[in-house]
């Protein structure tokens, strides 16, 4: 009989809990795993600086998953902020609208560099986008025909590169980083080698031609990594000839194990990315639900705290971690735009 009593008590308790679930006194954030470390630093400092507010909850899971949660509707059971390592897509804005999230405020927090790194032991690598394209594209134009990529060694691609087998660990397709990789390296390299024009001659459909430029070979030479950078690091530790794609901050934290490759002769650093010299970088964002401002305690203060120079400025903890700060004017604009309540 005690069992029955226990279960009855548990049921009553759970119903009572359900009744108390209406209000929320904590900011809820979800989204990109690239933005996660930065959001964590800000959330933690926010909780310490404002003892009257609780630290925000930051979920990871990827830009797309975060925006999907964000677009579920308005109300305390939905999240307040979506972190994203890419701009929101128009399809996502429409999905948001359909669910009643009509006012979205976009906040750009800074930039992130995408770097190539190898094991410490191998020779220096200096890429140009064309090398990456020729090494990793699914098909190359040879003698006026599209053929499967025949290159096996980096030295086949460019005699100046080391004579080692090509083995690239690149972000999988669910990562926002993959898009930047395709756009800034493969598409550029495709254009630089002149392959883009030749592909256009072979494939008349424009979209298909653009796709052919950024298609990555699937013969095992390029490996998609669907996990995080720690997985890429483990792959490089296992295959010393491997080349991995990392975020700048991850590389900087593991610079004693990794050697970074230059792209177009530029070494990726916070400075070279801030100046726009290093070609492979992208802005990082978060999106705020305007309807929740003033409803969820601490939301407005969190965003303002995040945008302050003490967090995203040149000499801030985020910059220390590896975020490339936006120029002064851009940071100022982000603050005024948010204060003015500018929506998408």
């Amino acid at each position: 009989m005690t069992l029955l009593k226990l279960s009855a008590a548990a049921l009553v308790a759970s119903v009572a809990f359900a009744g108390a679930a209406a209000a929320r006194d904590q900011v809820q954030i979800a989204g990109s795993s690239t933005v996660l470390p930065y959001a964590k630093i800000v959330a933690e400092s926010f909780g310490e600086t404002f003892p009257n507010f609780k630290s925000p909850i930051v979920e990871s899971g990827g830009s797309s998953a975060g925006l999907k949660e964000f677009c579920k509707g308005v109300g305390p059971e939905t999240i307040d902020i979506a972190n994203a390592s890419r701009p929101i897509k128009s399809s996502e804005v429409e999905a948001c609208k359909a669910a009643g999230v009509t006012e979205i405020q976009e906040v750009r927090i800074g930039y992130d560099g995408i770097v190539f790194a190898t094991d410490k032991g191998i020779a220096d690598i200096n890429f140009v986008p064309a090398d990456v394209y020729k090494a990793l594209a699914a098909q190359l134009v040879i003698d006026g025909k599209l053929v499967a990529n025949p290159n096996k060694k980096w030295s086949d691609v460019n005699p100046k590169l080391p004579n080692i087998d090509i083995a690239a660990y690149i972000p999988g397709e669910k990562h926002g980083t993959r898009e930047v990789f395709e756009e800034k390296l493969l598409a550029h390299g495709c254009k630089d080698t002149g392959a883009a024009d030749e592909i256009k001659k072979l494939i008349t459909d424009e979209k298909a031609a653009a796709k052919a430029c950024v298609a990555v070979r699937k013969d095992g030479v390029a490996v998609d990594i669907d996990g995080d950078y720690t997985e890429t690091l483990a792959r490089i530790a296992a295959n010393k000839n491997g080349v991995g794609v990392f975020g700048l901050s991850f590389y900087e934290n593991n610079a004693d194990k990794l050697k970074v490759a230059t792209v177009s002769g530029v070494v990726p650093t916070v400075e070279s990315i801030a100046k726009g010299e290093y070609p492979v970088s992208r802005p990082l964002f978060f999106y705020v639900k305007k309807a929740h401002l003033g409803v969820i305690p601490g939301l407005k203060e969190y965003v303002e705290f995040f945008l302050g120079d003490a967090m995203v400025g040149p000499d801030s903890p985020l910059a220390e971690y590896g975020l490339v700060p936006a120029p002064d004017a851009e940071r100022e604009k982000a603050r005024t735009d948010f204060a003015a309540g500018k929506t998408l």
Partner: protein
Amino acid sequence: MTDITSADPMVLTAAPPRREIGIKRRYAAERRFRLYGILAISFGVIFLLLLLWSVVSKGYTAFLQTEITVPVTFTEKVIDPQNTRATNPAVLMAANYPVLARDALAKELGVDPADRAALKEVNSMISASVRVQLRDIVVNDPSVIGKTVPVKVLAEGNVDAAYKGHIDLSVPESDRKISDRQLGWIQQLAAKGELASRFNTGLFVNGASSRPEAAGVGVALIGSFFMMLIVLALALPIGVAASIYLEEFAPKNRLTDLIEVNINNLAAVPSIVYGLLGLAVFINFAGLPRSASLVGGLVLTLMTLPTIIIATRAALKAVPPSIRAAALGLGASKMQTIFHHVLPLAMPGILTGTIIGLAHALGETAPLLLIGMVAFVADFPATPLQPSTALPVQIYMWANEAERAFVERTSGAIIILLLFLLAMNIGAVILRRRFERRW
């Protein structure tokens, strides 16, 4: 016998001819099978040892944390320059406390206060958590202002990693997170005994943090505890009631067969499916808060139920029918038979099944991903309705961190989880030993 021997004396001297029954072949087969068995076991043991070795060798240092003892002077000029704390206590909250610790350490190391680059390096040896630590000291006891008090501050994650030997010091200085000058300071402080390792209680009591030195599994432990409590309070009574009904009362027909097939099926459903269900039912429909351990507990209850039902039914089935017959024969009702005789005898089996189900639920992350529990949670939850994480989730989150100091903490958290699982499984064995009846 004598007749036979006298009839054929030849047989007496030679051994009796044995029928060829393949005894050698059969012994050989048995030996081979034993060998296979030993090989199979050693294969498993080797991998278990490899796992334990890799976790423990990487993780044991996580239970130690490097601390620096510095005599911090709580200068009034830094904390409350206008002397307004009597009227405006917020001054004490917002003061620039890290400077106090930095200056104290710089003085200890003999660094010139005008050398800004050196001061920055000194500052980066102390955890940023020092702000809250010193603030709490001052807020709790404002009379400390103006005095010099020795304070044990956490060393920054990279200092901790370097002191424990986790950073490769053979690479050029620019490629590591710690400079040669800082290494010199570490040695200098360690020689004076002001920098030392002590047991890392923070690993157990702190919440999540972006700073490895201040990060702990405290919030995750509480979240896991709440969830286990909810699973136990819901899954055990519901599971036992369902199995008693199915086993003892329900008629055997197509419907109950269908239910049985479905329960067995549910036990094998990937756990992420329960997460999807939890998101749809508990969060979107019932409106329970995201990231709350209540929702996590409910989802894990659904996941554990089939395991408990299957174990309970097996335990009930194993009670000999003679017990039931005897009870019924003495005039007990069916209800009395079950609750007075069958259930107590089946209890060890039921509890073992429950503990195994709980241990399974304790190690689960996939269903928690969708209900928002794979998250950074710094504040402690007071009720199951407040956001929290779970122990395996914390391991997953730390495994993805970039900082070197999180590598050992990941393994440290795995050791903690393994210890909990070990304790639960030992509990199951003890319960079985103590209460098991033999007929």
